[in-house]
C-alpha cells in the first residue's frame, strides 16, 4: 500500500516537474536569505551577508540533481530523455527520418498482410454450417450435369440432400441505364439450406423460388 502511494507521488511529480523545480528554487532562496538575515544581525552589511550566505550554501547543481533523483522513476526518465534525443536527431535529418519511417511502414504493412492471409487460408474455419457433412460430387466428368440428373440423384436418397451449382458463370446486371458484368454462380433452390453459407447482403433463395438473384 505504501509502495503504491509512493509510485503515485512519483507519477504526480512526473506531471508537475516545472512546479517542483520552482518550489525548490524558492526554498533555496529562502534558506540563503534567512542565513543572510542572521549574518546581518552580527553586523555584516546586507549585500555582503547575501554573498556569504550564498557561498556557504555552495553549488546547487549537485543538490538539485539529487533532489530530482529522489522523485524520479529512473527508467521512465531515461526513456523520456532517449525519446527526446531521438526526436531531435530525426528533426535535424528529415531525409533519414523519411527513409526510416517509410521502411518501417513497408515492413509492418507487409508483415500484417502476410499474417492476415496466413490466418485466413491456413487457420480460419470454413464459413459453411457443417463442413464435415458436405461432399463435392461431379456427374458426367467435367461438363455440367442436367437438371434431370440432379433430380434423379436427389430422389435416389443416397445423400441426405443434393444441391446443384454452376461454378463459373457471368451475367449482366441492369441498374437504371447502366449494365454491369457480374461473376455469378447459379445454384438450385435448396443450396443455401444445405451449405449454410451466411448471406452477407440481402436474403437467401428459399426452396421453391425460381429465377431469383441474391
Amino acid at each position, binding site marked *: 500500500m505504501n509502495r503504491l502511494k*509512493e509510485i503515485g507521488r512519483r507519477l504526480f511529480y512526473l506531471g508537475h516537474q516545472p512546479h517542483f523545480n520552482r518550489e525548490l528554487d524558492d526554498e533555496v532562496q529562502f534558506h540563503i536569505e*534567512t*542565513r543572510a*538575515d542572521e549574518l546581518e544581525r552580527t553586523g555584516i552589511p546586507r549585500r555582503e551577508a547575501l554573498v556569504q550566505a550564498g557561498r556557504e*550554501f*555552495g*553549488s546547487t547543481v549537485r543538490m538539485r540533481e*539529487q*533532489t530530482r533523483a529522489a*522523485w524520479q522513476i529512473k527508467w521512465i526518465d531515461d526513456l523520456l530523455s532517449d525519446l527526446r534525443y531521438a526526436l531531435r536527431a530525426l528533426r535535424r535529418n528529415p531525409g533519414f527520418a523519411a527513409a526510416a519511417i517509410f521502411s518501417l511502414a513497408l515492413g509492418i504493412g507487409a508483415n500484417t498482410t502476410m499474417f492476415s492471409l496466413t490466418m485466413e487460408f491456413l487457420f480460419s474455419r470454413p464459413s459453411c454450417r457443417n463442413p464435415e457433412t458436405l461432399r463435392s460430387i461431379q456427374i458426367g466428368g467435367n461438363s455440367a450435369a442436367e437438371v434431370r440428373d440432379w433430380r434423379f440423384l436427389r430422389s435416389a436418397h443416397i445423400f441426405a440432400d443434393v444441391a446443384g451449382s454452376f461454378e463459373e458463370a457471368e451475367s449482366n446486371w441492369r441498374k437504371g441505364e447502366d449494365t454491369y458484368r457480374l461473376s455469378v454462380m447459379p445454384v438450385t433452390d435448396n443450396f443455401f439450406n444445405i451449405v449454410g453459407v451466411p448471406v452477407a447482403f440481402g436474403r437467401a433463395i428459399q426452396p421453391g423460388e425460381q429465377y431469383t438473384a441474391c
Partner: protein
Amino acid sequence: MMQESNIPEFLPGTLYMLILRTLARGPLHGYAISRRIKEHSEEALEIEEGSLYPALNRMLVKGWLTAEWGISENNRKARFYKLTAEGRRQLGRESRQFDRLIRAIQLVMRSA
C-alpha cells in the same frame, strides 16, 4: 566543523532519523531543521544543505513527511515540513534500531 558534518556518511540512515526526531515536536522549514540539529548536538552535527534538501525530498516520496508553504518567523514564504503518522512510526523503528546498534557497539568496546 567541516569534518563533523559527514556523520550521515559513516552512519548511513541517521540523517533521516535526526530529521524525523527534529520534526517530532512540530513543523519546521529546512533552514530551521539544520539549525536545530546543529544547536541540539552542541555544534557537533552540521547537515550540509547539499544533503538536507535531497533527504527531505526522499522522505516526502516515502510519505514520512508532508510539505506546506507558510510564512516564516522572519516574515518570508517558507516551506514547512510536517511529520506524518507513517513518519512517526518510522522514527520509532529507526531509533530502536539505532539504540540496538549503539548498545552492541558499546558491548564490544567494553569487552576489550
